[in-house]
């Protein structure tokens, strides 16, 4: 049971990372730097509870806000470049954050423990949920609740004009500006909000694991975050959720095959891209499903030309 709670917790946190990348992707950008915002959220939220004695909720909020503000500051210059250039620039940003935490030391002795970011030793003893007697199952509930809030926001976004605006920007910036869309503002909005989501995931993670270090926010996490939406699909927020569930679930359920596990994972990514370059849940599928769900009465007959 413990094991399944752990997997579900990881899925919830990684789904949020996937949604974060997805939000950048639907405004036409690819970020390999969301793990940087994840790290910022984790360190800030962790410091808030472990060093400053804040309650979990304001701690998470602080992590979100700091990640989003940094996202805004990084987004303005970074979004001047696009496509592959931006992919590299964001990865550079992620590495800068990671290497900064590799060097930052801000600790305090609490009881017999050294608490706080401790350079290469990592940030240990984020014991909030243990000290308060929150069980893993209860904490899973908190993670899923947070995920549910994020998902509801995404649901609203996709049905809103803003969502359509982001997708228009993704597809053709010139055409988008030609219908009056402020392309820069749309992209910076997407990037900032996505940074906040990644920060939330980080804050939740550090309290789940009670520990974080720079190695946990390196290239493999960047790759995992990007893989969820691209494998799961860019047609709807369901895509990254599906991606996280399938891929995390898959890697865990293949533990028996543990030698081949990661290799199967890699091969699966290649095959998906060959056959469904926009992922499993792509735009065409989303429209088809919407067609099935729409009540027939609303369909009007074709007017005479």
């Amino acid at each position, binding site marked *: 049971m413990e094991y399944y709670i752990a997997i579900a917790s990881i899925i919830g946190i990684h789904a949020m990372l996937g949604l974060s990348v997805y939000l950048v992707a639907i405004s036409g950008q*690819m970020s390999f730097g969301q793990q940087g915002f994840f790290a910022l959220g984790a360190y800030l939220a962790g410091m808030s509870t472990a060093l400053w004695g804040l309650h979990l909720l304001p701690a998470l909020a602080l992590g979100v806000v700091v990640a989003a503000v940094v996202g805004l500051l990084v987004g303005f*210059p*970074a979004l*001047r*470049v696009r*496509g*592959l*250039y931006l*992919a*590299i*620039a964001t*990865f*550079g*940003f992620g*590495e*800068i954050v990671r*290497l*900064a935490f*590799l*060097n930052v030391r801000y600790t305090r002795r609490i009881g017999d423990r050294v608490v706080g970011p401790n350079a290469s030793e990592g940030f240990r003893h984020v014991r909030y949920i243990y000290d308060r007697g929150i069980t893993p199952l209860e904490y899973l509930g908190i993670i899923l609740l947070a995920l549910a809030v994020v998902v509801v926001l995404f649901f609203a976004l996709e049905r809103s004009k803003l969502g359509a605006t982001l997708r228009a920007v993704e597809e053709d910036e010139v055409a988008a500006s030609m219908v009056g869309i402020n392309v820069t503002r749309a992209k910076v909005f997407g990037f900032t909000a996505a940074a906040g989501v990644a920060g939330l995931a980080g804050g939740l993670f550090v309290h789940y694991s009670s520990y974080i270090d720079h190695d946990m926010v*390196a*290239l493999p996490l960047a*790759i995992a975050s*990007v*893989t969820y939406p*691209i*494998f799961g699909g860019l047609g709807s927020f369901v895509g990254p959720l599906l991606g996280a569930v399938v891929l995390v679930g898959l890697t865990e359920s293949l533990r028996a095959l543990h*030698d081949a596990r*990661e*290799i199967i*994972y*890699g*091969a*699966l*990514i*290649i095959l*998906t*891209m*060959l056959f469904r*370059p*926009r992922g499993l849940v792509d735009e065409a599928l989303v429209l088809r499903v919407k067609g099935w769900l729409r009540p027939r009465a609303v369909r009007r007959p074709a007017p005479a030309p």
Partner: protein
Amino acid sequence: MGTALFDGTEQLINGLMYGCFYALVGGGFTLLFGVLRRFNLAYGSTIMAGAYAGLIPVYLFKAPVLVLFVTTIVVSVLVGLLVEFCCFRFLRKGHELAPLMTTIGMLIVIDETIVHLTDAVGLKYPAPFGDESLALGPFLIRPDYLAILVVSIACFSAIFWLMHRTRFGRAMRAVAERPEAAQILGVSVRRVNVLTFVLTSAMAGIIGFFAAVSVGSARPEMAAWLTGKGLVVMVLGGLGSFPGAILGGLALGVLEFEAVWFLGSSYRDILAFSILFLILMVRPGGLLGSRPA
């Protein structure tokens, strides 16, 4: 000569020599990007696969270093062709991110295969150039760095000759500039793509050999490390410019060595990535290039 000036000069010499190595890595990424207009994120893994495979004849038959060197190159070329076949050949057009993801998939497959086969331990590499530092006037330099310098100059010359004096080179440049036009003029784009993979993978073999020699072992972290440096150099040089990549590699080498000496090693990588980020913001066309469209 003051100590700081002396040390600075010694680091400059070392940095230039090691910068040649970075230039090779960035050059491999750049040639491939120039022709295909796509990133091959499995390039670091191709390098690593060659470096590990080169050890097989050494461990099995106590083969000499020359055999190791040749094996590295041959295996890298085979892996490169596998990457081309799995990740690029059957991709549909118009999806910029798809090759990024397929090569990430390949990176995972190759890296994990190696990790499982070797239990993630580094394998000791021979030191064909000895351990003794050479004296160049008052400065001490490492012999393997000197070998890198010589080999990379040979590589760059060969590539320039290939690109500007041969039919393949002309076809390559034509495809890099205008693939559609090249196709109309009877250049087989696929053939050029495959040959570019062969060329850059052969370079990967050479890189893998020297990477492992300079560290003393073949290690599983090699792929990520080389990918990071390769991307930085490619961006510094302006994506797709081979002379730019050489300049970018030298610049990165010098900067890193000076930074290690004067700031300490923990700042080396953060410096590299800060430069990467700044260059992309300020001069996205690279040191030599103009702003991309």
